[in-house]
């Protein structure tokens, strides 16, 4: 877990990285393999890193038994004792429920065992997430506590800090919260206003400022707070830099506002937190002074992958409930389930659930590998895909349910409201798409620099090479990246899908090259282009995940693996055509690309700040 989300971009990150290495080394002494290339980044170069994704990551039988023993009671608790409707109505998780959660150890799932946590691997964490998500309020409370709230201490804390805070946090005696967002600062770290000034005796920082929309803000007694501090940098000038602090409520001067009234996840506690002259000892600086930006980024990047399995768990439950309704409700002497339009919705839900589950567990497995995998792109892709699929599927489920889906007596509308937040928090999907596309393009751009330069300077050999490549591409050559065939990783029953994936990857890399050639570093401004790049990549990752998983299922001989093959083939074909369309939109002067028109329309609307058209009934005079 600790390695997840490490994102080495500069020297400062490297410093932090050393701290992380030191920590993880203590957990996993066997570390000889070099840092592995991330799978998604290589897709930008037209390569499929087979050993990263094939075979589908597995856990041993013992581990599985262990986790199943654990899953049982948790599932029982959630299905029998948690009253989600009551939590939603009252806007509060009852204390006894929280106590039970604590006694089950769910507050310290990823805290290492030596600090009193469960020390679960990412895969195990994802598995438990499936069950916890049966109640979104509880899931969000727990995630805010351990996926972001105390994650900073695990990732960047010193031994003393860990020893001091983690045991109580793991037991749930203390609840953690993550305080980053401010009224003026969402993802913009430069506009953080909260300030920490060093006291004269240099033993304390005095913290002043307020944070908004803090999940668990009212419950928490330990906060990870990000504030601006003055840092003297190497050339002697004083700069404001973000620093992370561990702040206890007992330090004084902390007040939380009243809980916000929200659309969904109403049981979770979200409120403002104000710090007024809170004295924080210097030992409570998390990471380095001035290194808070990297800490925040790592925490945010590491927490995302688990959404995939959580949403899949919720969707599976939803499919059960909806199918029950569709098979019993009769219209025109036929069950709803006999109508094609209803059947289609179930296929969609099953497909989405399958894909996101595959993506989530593939990512979790990659994170659990020895080495130091940088899977932040993959995690972001899982988050984007699963949150959007969740919204779409819940909406379709409500459509199946008709009127009863809209009534508050049934749980469905609550699920709809709850799932809306998934697209917004932990980085909105728009922002994550930028992240996915830009990180990949940065990687590809660096590697292609020499080539692009040669092309721009008019190096004859390179140009001839490129032209001949393009000519071969346009003649429709078959792309073979070695997924199929005699020693192929993909089962022959999905050979077509594998070919589709290979072809997509190949042309994707071509498009990436063209885009880099066309836009260079100014591609940062081309958000609509970046969105398509991200969408294609998400689809590619999804295709890889389902192919890998379905192949494993066949090989191991899992029950109903033919169903999995069906789902995998459906998804791959759909994604293939979506990708082809997106790729053609990325061509220059593509007739499918309406970006210019779209920009014009939005520009005019935003200039007027209103709908521009005249009323259809109007006359000229």
């Amino acid at each position, binding site marked *: 877990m600790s390695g997840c989300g490490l994102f080495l*971009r*500069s020297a400062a990150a490297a410093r932090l990285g050393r701290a992380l290495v030191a920590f993880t080394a203590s957990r996993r002494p066997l570390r000889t393999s070099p840092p592995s290339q991330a799978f998604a980044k290589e897709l930008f170069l037209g390569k499929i890193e087979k050993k990263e994704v094939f075979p589908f990551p597995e856990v041993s039988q013992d581990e599985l038994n262990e986790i199943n023993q654990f899953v049982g009671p948790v599932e029982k608790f959630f299905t029998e004792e948690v009253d989600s409707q009551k939590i939603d109505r009252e806007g509060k998780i009852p204390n006894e429920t929280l106590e039970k959660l604590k006694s089950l150890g769910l507050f310290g799932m990823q805290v290492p065992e030596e600090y009193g946590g469960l020390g679960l691997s990412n895969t195990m964490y994802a598995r438990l997430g499936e069950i916890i998500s049966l109640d979104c309020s509880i899931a969000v409370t727990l995630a805010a506590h351990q996926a972001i709230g105390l994650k900073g201490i695990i990732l960047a804390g010193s031994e003393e800090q860990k020893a001091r805070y983690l045991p109580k946090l793991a037991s749930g005696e203390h609840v953690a919260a993550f305080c*980053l967002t401010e009224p003026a600062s969402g*993802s*913009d*770290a*430069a506009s953080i206003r909260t300030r920490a000034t060093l006291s004269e005796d240099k033993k304390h920082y005095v913290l002043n400022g307020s944070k908004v929309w803090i999940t668990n803000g009212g419950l928490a007694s330990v906060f990870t707070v990000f504030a601006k501090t003055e840092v003297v940098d190497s050339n002697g000038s004083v700069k404001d*830099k*973000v620093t992370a602090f561990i702040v206890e409520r007992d330090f004084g001067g902390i007040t939380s506002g009243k809980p916000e009234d929200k659309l969904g996840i109403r049981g979770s506690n979200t409120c403002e937190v104000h710090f007024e002259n809170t004295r924080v000892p210097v030992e409570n600086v998390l990471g380095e002074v001035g290194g808070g*930006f990297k800490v*925040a*980024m790592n925490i*945010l990047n590491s927490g995302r992958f688990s959404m995939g399995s959580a949403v899949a768990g919720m969707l599976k439950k939803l499919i059960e409930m909806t199918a029950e309704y569709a098979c019993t409700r009769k219209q025109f002497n036929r069950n709803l389930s006999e109508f094609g339009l209803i059947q289609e919705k179930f296929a969609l839900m099953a497909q989405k659930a399958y894909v996101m589950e595959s993506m989530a567990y593939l990512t979790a497995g990659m994170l659990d590998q020895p080495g130091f995998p940088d899977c932040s792109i993959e995690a972001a892709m899982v988050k984007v895909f699963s949150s959007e699929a969740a919204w779409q599927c819940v909406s379709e489920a409500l459509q199946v349910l008709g009127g009863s889906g809209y009534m508050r007596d049934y749980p469905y509308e609550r699920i709809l409201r709850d799932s809306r937040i998934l697209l917004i928090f932990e*980085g909105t999907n728009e*922002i*994550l798409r*930028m*992240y996915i596309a*830009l*990180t990949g*393009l*940065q990687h590809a*751009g*660096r590697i292609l*620099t020499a080539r*692009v*330069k040669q092309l*721009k300077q008019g190096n004859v050999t390179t140009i001839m090479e490129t032209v001949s490549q393009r000519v071969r591409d346009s003649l429709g050559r078959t792309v073979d990246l070695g997924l199929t065939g005699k020693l192929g990783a993909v089962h022959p029953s999905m050979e077509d899908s594998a070919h589709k994936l290979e072809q997509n990857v190949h042309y994707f890399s071509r498009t990436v090259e063209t885009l*880099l*050639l*066309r*836009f*260079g*570093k*100014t*591609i*940062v401004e081309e958000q609509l282009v970046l969105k398509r790049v991200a969408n294609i990549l998400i689809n590619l990752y999804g295709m890889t995940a389902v192919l890998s998983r379905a192949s494993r299922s066949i090989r191991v001989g899992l029950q109903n693996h033919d169903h999995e093959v069906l789902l995998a083939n459906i998804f791959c074909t759909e994604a293939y055509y979506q990708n082809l369309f997106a790729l053609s939109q990325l061509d*220059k002067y593509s007739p499918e690309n309406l970006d210019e028109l779209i920009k014009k329309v939005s520009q005019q609307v935003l200039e007027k*700040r209103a709908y521009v058209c005249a009323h259809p009934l109007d*006359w*000229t*005079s």
Partner: protein
Amino acid sequence: MRLLRLREVKAFFQGHAASHQLGWNWIPRLSLSPKGLKILAASLSCCRWLSDRQRHELGPSHPAGPGPLSGLGRYLQHCPHRSPLLSVVLYPQVTPQAPRGLHCSTAAHNPDSPLVPRPPEPQRGLVKALAPHEELFRQAPDGVRDKASFVQAVQNFTQYNVHKRGHVDFIYLALRKMREYGVERDLAIYNLLLDIFPKEVFRPRNIFHSIFLHYPRQQECGIAVLEQMENHGVMPNKETEFLLTQIFGRKSYPMLKFVRMKLWFTRFKNINPFPVPRDLPQDPVDLARLALRHMEPDLSARVTVYQMPLSKDSTDATDPTEPHIVGIQSPDQQAALAHHDPARPIFVEGPFSLWLRDKCVYYHILRADLLPPEEREVEEIPEEWNLYYPMQLDLAYGRSSWDDYEFNIDEVEEGPVFAICMAGAHDQATLAKWIQGLQETNPTLARIPVVFRLSASSGELLASSSGLEETPLTPPEGREEEENNQQRQQQSQS
């Protein structure tokens, strides 16, 4: 455009299948960018002015004053500079709203005098016959001049004059009187006036009638009615069309004019992207508010009234103690002012004029000089800015020139404008109060030296406008005003 003209002429001779065809088929050709619209509108106002001048030159007795077809050629012949702009807009029949509403547009017509051609008779001699039906309009017993009394006058004419003798004179007279009765924008009244014409009499009965101007005086009178409608932006309706076909027939000049109005009104009615309301507020503070909003592109800008006029009665600008001061400032301007280097002075400049329909208002700006290039701060992207994705890529190459669609434009950069104000008086004392008021929201302003660079405004315009701001136009003044406009336009064009 030229194509269109041919079509239209053809349509006219094919006996009016035209208005709808022309009305709708050609809309896409007119989709212009805002900049294009401005140019078009400017050229329109130029064209209007030319047409007016022409009419003055030709003299009102010229038979083809607003002549629809021949007029075009003449405009081009007489036009001093045949600019390509002019060829864009060949039609003088244009709704007056378009040019007038433009920022600083000078096309302030006094709608009274020059647009309605005088009937030819009075000039021919008989002064006594100047207004043969004047008494009909003098009758109003209680002196109330409104729609009802105007309708009454027209009805009186038709009632007592069964043979409609002198109806052309009467219509011309009525057209001139409309403004006094405040009915110049009432379509029903225009239809009423057209209804005075005897029906079926002037219709061409054979091809020769329609080739040669049949009943020219009556046709011209009909055109005059339509022309006045046009000048007031009144769109003719089905009833107008019906009356015109009844009176003059389809193949007549008034009908052609009607078709053209139907065509061009729809295109030019909303051509101004910055529309000005038809009735301007009378209160100078409200007017200033409107004008400031009109000039300020930023919708989040806030209008502040720094000082209300002393009382309702003493709103005239001659009262030096308490003239109104209204200012506007957007948040961006506020931020720019906050970042201004206090060592550099800023300037209050003005007055500059702004025309809103027939009113001229004056404004002042608070501005600074452009920073010399060596002192400008280069905006750099902070290293740790975005928590979620990189704000810039670390690549050695930029956009290829094939994907660089930026035109190579020489742009003249100007210094920043920090605020705009409109005050009842244009002296330094008043403007100093404005600066004081601004200091409340812009604390840095207290440390920046402010230099007043007030130009002595061109006396004539200011004098007439200071009357204009408060009182509605009186006809003679308006005439003078318009001539001023023309002079100014000439200056600006030359």
